[in-house]
């Protein structure tokens, strides 16, 4: 129940950590930028689509494209794993509200954008990638389950894989029950073998949660920037990547976790 993969590309985006270049120093302890950025406008979408795209699609495509660009790997050659705890909560709010008020007025576009794999679909259409793509959810353990499926594909089929996770804010009545704030996307390009592109080695092991070491708290600037987003649990791994070395863990469920060890390749 262990393995090793190589990180060829890293991407992270939230309004106060807008891109890996900006986020890495904050993860190492520097102060975050004072002005939050508006939502990203991924170049992969046509200008009209860029404005109309759901938030989930905008954030997912932004980090997916940034991770591919950082790795120098052609997105067409990468199977992809997309993971989101809640999917597009704004569209879910719209659908539930419209169904309660006037069901006959449901927008066909909003409906087909409501599928959990909408971002995966737009990604494969935008990049012309015909390789497999999946979309997962595992409540509080979504990042961990997305990461282990990605590592599992890397190991099983000896292929590099794009992994992108994202969650957006709950709105409307949904926000009274579902806790999800802000906009957060995190992506990695993972490869089975070390290459000139590799920036870090990622050793992984499935462990019982009771066996996890105590985790060092995140710098306040990071914790505040992503507070309330379900994917904040991914940040210790990104801190280790920003430092170039170190341990981190993500939960896989109530009982298991992935123990991760990052070491530098460059």
């Amino acid at each position, binding site marked *: 129940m262990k393995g090793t993969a190589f990180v060829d590309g890293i991407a992270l985006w939230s309004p106060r950590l807008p891109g890996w270049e900006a986020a890495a120093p904050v993860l190492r302890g520097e102060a975050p930028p004072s002005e939050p950025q508006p939502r990203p406008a991924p170049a992969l979408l046509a200008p009209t689509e860029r404005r109309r795209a759901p938030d989930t699609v905008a954030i997912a495509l932004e980090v997916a494209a940034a991770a591919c660009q950082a790795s120098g790997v052609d997105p067409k050659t990468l199977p992809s794993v997309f993971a989101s705890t809640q999917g597009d909560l704004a569209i879910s709010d719209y659908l539930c509200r419209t169904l*309660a008020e006037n069901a006959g007025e449901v927008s066909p576009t909003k409906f087909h954008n409501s599928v959990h794999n*909408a971002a995966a679909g737009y990604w*494969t259409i935008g990049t012309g990638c015909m390789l497999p793509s*999946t*979309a997962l959810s595992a409540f509080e353990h979504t990042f961990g389950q997305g990461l282990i499926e990605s590592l599992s594909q890397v*190991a099983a089929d000896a292929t590099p894989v794009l992994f992108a996770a994202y969650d957006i804010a709950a709105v409307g009545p949904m926000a*009274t029950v*579902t806790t999800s704030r802000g906009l957060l996307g995190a992506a990695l390009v993972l490869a089975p073998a070390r290459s000139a592109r590799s920036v870090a080695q990622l050793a992984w092991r499935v462990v019982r949660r009771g066996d996890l070491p105590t985790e060092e708290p995140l710098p306040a600037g990071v914790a505040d920037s992503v507070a309330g987003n379900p994917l904040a649990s991914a940040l210790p791994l990104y801190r280790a990547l920003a430092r170039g070395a170190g341990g981190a863990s993500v939960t896989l469920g109530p009982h*298991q976790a992935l123990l991760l060890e990052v070491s530098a390749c460059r």
Partner: protein
Amino acid sequence: MPAPIVPLRITAHTATSAAGRGRAALLEALRTRSTGLTPNDFGAAPLPCFIGRVAGLEDAPLPARFANWECRNNRLAWLGLQADGFLEAALAARARYGADRVALVLGTSTSSIGASEEAYRALEPDGSYPPHLRRPIVHTPHSLGDFVAAALGLEGPSVTVATACSSSAKVFAQAERLIRNGVADAAIVGGVDTLCGSVLYGFNALGLVSPEPCRPFDPERRGISIGEAAGFALLEKRDAAAPGAGPWLLGYGESSDAHHMSSPHPEGLGARLAMADALARAALAPEAIDYVNMHGTASQKNDEVEAQVIAAMFPATTRASSSKGWTGHTLGAAGIVEAVVTLLAIEHGFMPGTLNARTLDAACGPQILLDNETRAVRHAASNSFGFGGNNCVLLFGAAGTA
């Protein structure tokens, strides 16, 4: 092309849909050509269409210990687990391998969004959910996986795959990888989707819902009939199998159309890639495939494209059909329900025809069956294609093929 996989043994499987609870009821409905589709009576102002509704869910609350997960989708999951002794088989696997060595990979399209819809119809004056629906776990896609993990007492990987109508086919692929990598020794896969306003009104807004029971591959087909279903399968390694064991998961193929969110690639390129991958993983040629259970939704575009793909890829001796005239399109559960239909074909030497179709579209080759046919089935495939251009083909084999 991918390398062949070591086949996985399917040691238990079950499906519950409008065509009946469990395999025997489904097989009987298929043999007697009795549809499960009925006039739509779901919700306060039902659209004029036909649905595949599972009878009795309203009167089947979850046991009190599972009250936190109470909702229509999890009720159907629980009902589905009771059929064919699946619950007992799953618990025996847990005891045999250990609770953290059995992975749970389930598919759904809308999970329990019906509970969120219900909350929005009954909001409190301050805009909050009514008290009985203030349970975050039923308002999230993983409601399904979390419930079944709790119901089975599993402690290993538990994840919900949501790639629209290919969801519960892709679970077989993900589970195979987890087992191959040693993350689990066995896996429970499956899927559950239930009727809800989102899918009925959403597909209707897209102009895809038929006013009559769906007629896959009929030149006069008018669209889909939406259904609900639950299904499960237990996957175990080959090395634990007795001689003569089966049936088997021999291969799977996944691909993306990279074409359009809600319309298939016009030449079915993604579907062809998925089929070719499945054949490669099973190390089989198209000539070896006796039966294909097609996606066959009865939408204009899907059927036209899929019929062309089958005609182009398979010899005239291969048989193919859509079983959606019995169950309706069960969306995120279609993959597992049709995997079970395909396994029934293998186990009983019986291939269902295409119910409700009177004649066949000109795009259909000689492979597509209108009437049921009795013939030994050694190797069979099941197609599942979803929105976002998400494709998955599963390949199964009879005892003696692995």
